[in-house]
């Protein structure tokens, strides 16, 4: 077991170093880059030269690479070109914003998805069922950014029901403790800030929840139908158990298994959706950070760190999955 883990850890380090090297050289081969992004229209050739020297771009690429590696090993990803702060701070601030949004979206998707799916299955073939199916199909087919855009237009402009953008009202002066604004308000007893942050969450979370919601409804419906068909339910009914008991004890519990799996499986899709949702609602999370780092001026230090972060998260999770297989299946262990 120890050998498997240590071998995989070495693999992990090797993969990360290889990836970093690749990204480093690739980004440096591209036109434009930091010098272009740091200098506005007013730069003279003289400043350009100064900047090239100041950033060490006049040195051999191997020296630059060595310095980059040394920095990364010490946990220093450099400063963001756009904002001038350390990259770790930029990412650290965006992270809770996206997590807060994603959690809210999942809560909405589950809270609405399971009851709706169950109701649809219960009224199979009737109006409610058909309507639900159509709505979920449209939910999967509509460009999510456009849906967000429409919701925003109707509910913040035509009627001023929700705030149009951001995570909290301007000038509220909330105290930042964890970066999760709803939680921060509770911690510091600034309950108005919590309520305000929650209010700002509603529309973005609904937009982000669209696709997972549609999928959860469909899967709940399908699996409830599957379970209703199973012999043990028929047996239970035949035994004369009360309908409510059957439903509660057998149908829902068994039907929820695939649903629970699906919920866990929506993470990647949620992240892709967050990129669009955050742009629509000016939500300062990872999604906005990704697009801003590209279109807002090729912020390579941030991009490098994001790619690396994604790779590490992915490899670690993969490793965990592999190891859990090893526990379950003895054949893998032998190999």
């Amino acid at each position, binding site marked *: 077991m120890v050998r498997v883990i240590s071998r995989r850890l070495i693999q992990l380090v090797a993969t990360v170093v290889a990836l970093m090297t690749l990204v480093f050289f690739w980004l440096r081969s591209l036109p434009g880059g930091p010098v272009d992004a740091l200098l506005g229209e007013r730069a003279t050739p003289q400043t350009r030269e100064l900047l090239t020297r100041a950033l060490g771009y006049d040195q051999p690429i191997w020296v630059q690479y060595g310095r980059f590696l040394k920095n990364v090993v010490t946990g220093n990803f450099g400063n963001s070109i756009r904002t001038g702060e350390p990259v770790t701070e930029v990412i650290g601030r965006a992270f809770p914003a996206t997590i807060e949004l994603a959690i809210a979206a999942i809560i909405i998707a589950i809270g609405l998805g399971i009851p709706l799916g169950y109701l649809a299955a219960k009224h199979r073939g009737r109006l409610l069922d058909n309507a639900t199916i159509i709505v979920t199909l449209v939910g999967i087919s509509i*460009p999510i950014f*456009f849906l967000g855009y429409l919701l925003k237009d109707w509910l913040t402009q035509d009627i001023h029901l929700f705030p149009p953008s951001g995570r909290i009202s301007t000038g509220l002066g909330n105290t930042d403790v964890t970066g999760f604004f709803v939680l921060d308000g509770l911690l510091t007893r600034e309950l108005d800030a919590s309520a305000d942050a929650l209010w700002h969450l509603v529309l973005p979370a609904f937009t982000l929840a669209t696709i997972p919601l549609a999928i959860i409804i469909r899967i709940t419906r399908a699996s409830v139908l599957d379970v209703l068909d199973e012999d043990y339910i028929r047996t239970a009914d035949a035994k004369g158990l009360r309908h409510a008991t059957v439903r509660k004890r057998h149908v829902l519990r068994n039907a929820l298994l695939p649903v629970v799996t699906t919920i866990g499986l929506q*993470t990647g*899709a949620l*992240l892709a959706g967050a990129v*669009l949702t955050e742009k629509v609602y000016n939500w300062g999370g990872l999604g906005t950070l990704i697009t801003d780092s590209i*279109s807002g001026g090729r912020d390579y230090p941030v991009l490098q760190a994001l790619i690396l972060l994604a790779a590490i998260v992915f490899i670690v999770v*993969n490793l965990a999955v592999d190891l859990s297989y090893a526990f379950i299946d003895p054949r893998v262990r032998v190999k």
Partner: protein
Amino acid sequence: MATLAENKRRRIEELIARTSEAGGVSLFRDAGRRLLRNPTAIVGGVLILLFLIIAIFAPLVAPHDPVQRFPELTRDLTVDHIPGPTAGHPLGSDPLGRDFASRMIYGARQTLFVGVLATLIGLLLGVLLGAIAGALGGRVDAIIMRLTDVMLALPSLLLAITLVALASQSTQWTVIIAVAVVNVPIFARLLRGSMLAQRESDHVLAARALGVKRHDIVLRHMLPNSLTAVIVQATLTFAVAILDAAALSFLGLGDPDINRAEWGLMLGVDGVRYFEVRPELAYFPALAIILVALGFTLLGESIREALDPKNRR
């Protein structure tokens, strides 16, 4: 992210299981019959057919050239006013004084182009990779499967964004390649898995016992069955390609050539920018995208359902 891979893997296995279970050619006939009785499939089919007809015959259907600017439209055009329907221009103008109706019609063609290419490239590369893995087996198989595992974890939109960052300038090909790449592992696994599963299935064993030649078994029995799974996946891929192209344009990282009439581009750029000036510029492309994506999803799901052994009673 890894869990996304899990999800995709599971769906692939399900699909393989459904399509490989007994049946050769008779399965097609059977499934076809059930498809024709299924109203969902018919709706999907009609939507796609309509879309294909418009796309293929765009030059005949469209009243005008989609990139030409018309003096009668530019005359009243300003940055905060876009002329509505007039004689000869049933849907009015676009933000540059071009015929919006013609652009919508030619849009079908460009959208088809993006969708078909994304699907086709993914399919070809995937089938190739899957075939290599299946044929060589052993270490190569293991490496390829490991690689597909990694790729399965990527949502196509994020890959497309990364591609833009790495390629410097986005083009129409960014989204095509991103969607294609994301689908390569799916197709590869589908083909490989379904062939492996069939090797053990009754009808192949029976054929082998009857002394049918090996390549006959592969061509007549195994490949058709594997392809049904691939077709189902292809219809679903198409919808994703269209939606991703629109999303990239909205993020400002899509196809930069606004002369090109493509629905995603029209919605993501002009539709959003001029929403308050003329909402039709957003509604029409959005509706077109929803209908086409819906068509492909409906048909794909119906085929999948039709192939479901549970429904074969």
